[in-house]
């Protein structure tokens, strides 16, 4: 039993080394997809969070509807809708971009809620202090509230980035050769599904680990400058 296990680990290691090249390519794709979609999602999130904090009914309603649609439907459905909506039909956007936009659309809603919470957690006194020296409400938001809110948003944002990274695996279903897709394709070709799945898990673990380090590094950096 134990011997079998050791044997299997040896096998796993061999396959890991053999498949290194193709998995590294897949990792690059996963990273491109994740970074791009999260980058776009941050702007979407900020935009809708600001809509919500305006207190203007129509704008709040628009933001709430967007968040409701995203939260109320499965991510895989959203990705397929973006894929078939954008890559077929007149637009002909590449599969990569439609997946990236689908993921951004999805993460944007959660990031909007994170930003909104962080903005509202900054005391009303800060806004009043800004206004009382004659700043406009937009300038107060930009220079006083947002810089403080972004710091507070960092831990939950980091969490959302990790979720975003793992969710990028769903792009496999629209044919992108990212980590999960490569593992299932290779696994069925070699009749060695489990081994490739475990390898993909290792890649995800390493990526998440690195992302966690990056987030906590940034947090510390910002804490020092306080």
């Amino acid at each position, binding site marked *: 039993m134990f011997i079998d296990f050791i044997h299997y680990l040896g096998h796993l290691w061999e396959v890991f080394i053999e498949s290194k090249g193709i998995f590294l390519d897949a990792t690059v794709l996963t990273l491109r997809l994740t970074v791009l979609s999260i980058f776009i999602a941050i702007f979407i999130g900020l935009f809708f969070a600001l809509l919500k904090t305006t207190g203007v009914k129509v704008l709040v309603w628009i933001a709430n509807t967007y968040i409701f649609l995203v939260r109320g439907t499965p991510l895989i459905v959203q990705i397929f809708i973006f894929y078939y909506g954008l890559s077929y039909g007149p637009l002909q956007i590449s599969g990569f971009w439609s997946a990236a936009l689908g993921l951004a659309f999805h993460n944007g809603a959660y990031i909007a809620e994170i930003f909104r919470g962080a903005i509202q957690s900054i*005391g009303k*006194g*800060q806004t*009043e*202090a*800004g*206004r*009382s*020296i*004659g*700043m*406009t409400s937009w*300038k107060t938001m930009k*220079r*006083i509230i947002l*810089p*403080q809110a972004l*710091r507070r948003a960092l831990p939950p944002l980091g969490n959302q980035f990790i979720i975003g990274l793992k969710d990028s695996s769903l792009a496999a279903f629209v044919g992108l050769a990212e980590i999960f897709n490569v593992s299932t394709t290779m696994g069925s070709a070699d009749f060695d599904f489990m081994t490739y799945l475990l390898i993909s898990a290792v890649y995800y673990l390493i990526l998440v680990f690195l992302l966690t380090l990056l987030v906590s590094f940034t947090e510390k950096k910002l804490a020092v400058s*306080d």
Partner: protein
Amino acid sequence: MGEVKKMIEARKLNKYFGDLHVLKDIDFSVDENNVVVLIGASGSGKSTLLRCLNFLEMKNSGDILIEDKSIDPKKSDLNKVRQKVGMVFQHFNLFPHKSVLENVIEGPTQVKGTSKRQAIKDAKELLDKVGLADKEDVYPEKLSGGQKQRVAIARSLAMRPDIMLFDEPTSALDPELVGEVLETMKALAKEGMTMVVVTHEMGFAREVSDWVLYMHEGKIVERGTPSDLFDNPQEKRTQAFLSSIL
């Protein structure tokens, strides 16, 4: 000398929060170089009155005049008005992500368009004046309450306001830190700053103020010089309030 200039005036000012009638036909004015102290029980509307004067809170009816000009919130640029009317808060409200110096130059550079060099030069003078020249690179969290409030005063002064409003500037401070803030305010008054101060520091009111107003349930029920109002209050409600806080 000639006529005295009214710096700020409220006429028949009314303010509601929902059904709650918080300010009831408030009438008062502050002459240039004068210090007016507002006293009154908790909930009597002192903060609301101050906040209406610089339009952080919008009145429901009545007039607010600044240097004899009626301010219509719909037509006037309130950001301009607020530049003239400085405000100091009970809880300081310093910008925690900015150093002391950055707090003070924020208004001049961002609102007035003063050059950064000039703003820094002015800010250093102001910090020197409030006794914090050595703290310019420190962040607010490293300051004592009294130091924070003095920075807040410097930040407000940096806009060169014509009038300063103080909402209980010392009531969040440990007793031993109250003095340094009051001294700073006294110095300001001596220089001729027009001030409206909500405070229960009777010593300060006696020494510095020209007028004391007593507010009760949204009305100014008595006004007088400090010695009149403290030593010889006419209204029963004023007497009761004064005996409750002394």
